[in-house]
């Protein structure tokens, strides 16, 4: 018994210490102010996010609907139970009755809940069907989960071709490690938010490169797993311009908590000008068609284009084979008049040579220059991208 007392005292002491620590942390907490984040979590939020899509509104309605039914059942069932607990006590002189069976009652309380369940399932069915209808989307965007960031590629619709990676803002991760969080968008701020137009049906295709992630934006009522090797889809039509936040919702490893989702919903004009800006950025990054190249540089570039497009037929050694004409020593290639070869490359020929119009001016210039200066071909001729642009006309 003595050891018991010592143990007990030890625990009291330890509980006291814990209390002290808690009190200290609580007081530091007071200094740490945070405001609700519009489109993200509110401080001490009690309900789902304010819905911004029809689906999210439907979900919220269904949740209220269920809450009301559950509350009514709760009050009914536990009203009876607590009445019984207070009335049918031995201390109040209650004598136990003797009934213990009633088939009628059993049937009633099997059928009634069954009907209630059907009543619940009906509106839910409607919502499921609406939720899964990803057809007729205005814009299709692929969201790729990568440990631990999101890649976005605009596949179809306005903005097609845009693609970027969206990562948690570096400062957020540092604050987390330091244990000193601050800011209303703590852990939710990213470098490149996903940008979409308001009132357009956006289809999100999800996939992943490593493990399963989940793309979630509560205000849109969207959560879709991103599964490596598979594509899944979901959709939303945001009704209000603004910033909306979500986080990865499937355990994906160490940095699971650090790959948020930030969706910027813009008006139609703002979105178009954003797309223009992005397109310009892409163009800036790609080849400048007015650049004047020097021979070795262009030959090196041309070899890559050749290997990617031409070598399957013409062979790496340029000898061709069967109906495929050799390029090595070909009169067309060696001809100082470049227009014959350019015409062939751009338009193709009935002998089976396809048209390569889809390649860029720089690529065509490079590959033609390559063929003129490789193998035994040593013409020293160079074809600049500007000549291709001219030949296209």
């Amino acid at each position, binding site marked *: 018994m003595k050891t*018991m007392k010592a143990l007990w005292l030890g*625990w009291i002491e330890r509980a006291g210490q814990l209390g002290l620590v*808690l009190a200290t942390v609580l007081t530091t907490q007071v200094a*740490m102010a*945070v405001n609700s*984040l519009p489109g993200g*979590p509110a401080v*001490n939020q*009690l*309900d*789902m996010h304010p819905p911004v899509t029809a689906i999210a509104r*439907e*979900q919220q309605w269904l*949740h209220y609907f*269920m809450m009301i039914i*559950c509350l009514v059942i709760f009050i009914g*069932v*536990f009203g009876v*139970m607590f009445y*019984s*607990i207070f009335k*049918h006590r*031995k201390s109040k002189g*209650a*004598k*136990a*009755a003797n*009934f213990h*069976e009633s088939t009628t*009652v059993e049937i009633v*309380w*099997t059928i009634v809940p*069954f009907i209630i*369940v059907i009543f*619940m*399932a009906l509106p*839910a*069915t409607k919502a*499921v*069907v609406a*939720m899964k209808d990803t057809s007729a989307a205005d814009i299709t965007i692929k969201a790729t989960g990568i440990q631990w960031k999101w890649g976005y590629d605009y596949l179809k619709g306005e903005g097609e071709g845009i693609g970027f990676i969206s990562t948690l803002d570096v400062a957020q991760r540092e604050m*987390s*490690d330091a244990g000193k*969080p601050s*800011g209303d*968008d703590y*852990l939710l701020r990213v470098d490149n938010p996903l940008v979409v137009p308001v009132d357009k049906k956006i289809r999100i295709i*999800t996939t992943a490169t490593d*493990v*399963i992630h989940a793309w979630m934006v509560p205000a849109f009522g969207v*959560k*879709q*797993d991103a*599964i*490596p*090797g598979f594509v899944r889809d979901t959709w939303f039509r945001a009704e209000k311009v603004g910033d909306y936040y979500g986080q990865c919702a499937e*355990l994906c*490893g160490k940095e*699971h908590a*650090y790959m948020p989702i930030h969706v910027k919903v813009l008006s139609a004009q703002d979105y178009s000008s954003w797309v223009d800006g992005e397109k310009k950025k892409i163009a800036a990054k790609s080849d400048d068609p007015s650049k004047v190249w020097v021979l070795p540089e262009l030959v090196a570039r041309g070899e890559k284009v050749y290997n990617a497009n031409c070598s399957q037929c013409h062979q790496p050694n340029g000898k061709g084979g069967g109906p495929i004409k050799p390029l090595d020593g070909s009169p067309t290639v060696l001809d100082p008049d470049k227009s014959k070869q350019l015409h062939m490359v751009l338009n193709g020929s009935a002998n089976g040579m396809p048209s390569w119009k889809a390649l860029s001016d720089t690529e065509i210039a490079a590959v033609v220059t390559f063929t003129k200066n490789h193998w035994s071909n040593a013409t020293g001729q160079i074809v600049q991208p500007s000549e291709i642009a001219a030949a296209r006309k």
Partner: protein
Amino acid sequence: MSAVLDHHGDQGHDHAHDHPHGWRRWVFATNHKDIGTLYLLFSFTMFIFGGILALGIRAELFHPGLQFINPQLFNQLTTMHGVIMVFGAIMPAFVGFANWMVPLQIGAADMAFARMNNFSFWLLIPAALSIVIAFFLPGGAPAAGWTLYAPLTLQMGPSMDAAIFALHIMGASSIMGSINIIVTILNMRAPGMTLMKMPLFCWTWLITAYLLIAVMPVLAGAITMTLTDRHFGTTFFNPAGGGDPVMYQHIFWFFGHPEVYIMILPAFGIVSAIIPAFARKRLFGYTSMVYATASIAILSFIVWAHHMFTTGMPVTGQLFFMYATMLIAVPTGVKIFNWIATMWRGSMTFETPMLFAVGFIFVFTMGGFTGLILAMAPVDIQLQDTYYVVAHFHYVLVAGSLYAMFAGVYYWGPKWTGVMYSETRGKIHFWGSLIAFNVTFFPMHFLGLAGMPRRYADYPMQFTDFNMIATFGAFWFGLMQVYFFLFIVVPMMRGEGKPAPQQPWEGAEGLEWEVPSPAPFHTFEHPPKLNAAATKVIG
């Protein structure tokens, strides 16, 4: 525990001298009561261990930002907390209850396969050790969540293999335990103890044992495929080789959903024994209770994909699993109604077992309501993988399974140990646990509705206050369990307290109350003669 009094339940033979003593008694145990005790002590140890991991999680989440543990260790804690609580604490604890109570309740001398019983317990020790060792292997313990989703498991270190090994032998142990329980119940009932007169605890365990035999091999298959994917070049779950990560989830949850009922059906059995005892009135609707239990078990096989609504199923798949899941509310509701009808116009007293049983009904039903809300696919899209789910399954597993087990310990503890617990201490434990539990888990509903994802080591600051409340509650809850161990379990095990009469509860019925307290080492060595209701021994 083996003082033998002359009593009709025991046929008057003194066997106290012919069983091994000291460590041999436990290592070579073949007695169902000793093995039951071993199971219960083992599971309580694991419960404390898993609880400490949970407190690590809650300590980290007390405040946003990383204070105590890094995200990798955090994931290890959530994973191992889940694995240990499910496979190390709840499941073995119920097997412990079954070992103690099934032979006593059906008037059998022991379990059917005594040595297999010993083996299935001692298998748990290497399993538990390899789980503990996992923390010290390079890379730390598995951190892929207790569901061990592929392909994340393929990125884990060697501890993943240790965990797979542990799950395999725990599965083998469960299957042997189940075979033992089924054979015991079907073959060793005393004459007159027909199936439909059998106590509901035996019924729920009979059904649970079938569930275990059906689904443990499925889990074994899933984790074996994970193992061969990790080491032997197969690509069951690796899309790069034509595998499908979602197939893992289908296989896992085909095990996982019946598993949920494996963890709750025996709890229903315990509560069905306690409510009538303290209402001093027979269980209402015994037959429908049996049918409801069986219906829940059957339905549990066709609802698994409600854990996977966000993986992107076709419309028809979502609808089917939504309807099937909501259907489970019907038999579960029948059970709740039957318990309340049993209480109705009874003559109730509220000793600790009854408090825990009523607490079970109240809090478990709240978990049932959130389950119904989660079953709705459109709402689940919002709540899947958020704290709402965490709140939901702790309401059904802690306030459900664990409370029923506490109720069972208080109810049958006097029979096991021969002494009464202190009623005041029991009440402190009950009210403390009940309030602390709700302080911990109720705020998690709000966190989930607001979209805070689960398994997050750090979170946006708007979630801070509710997390602080939850952490405060969790430590309080943990302390209540330490209190339970030091001030209730330890004194009872030491035999400190008022000696328990053979029948400590005025309204309790059943063969376990026909033997002295503590139950002698051997009981019902010769089949007893039973009265018509099969609740009393008559010569």
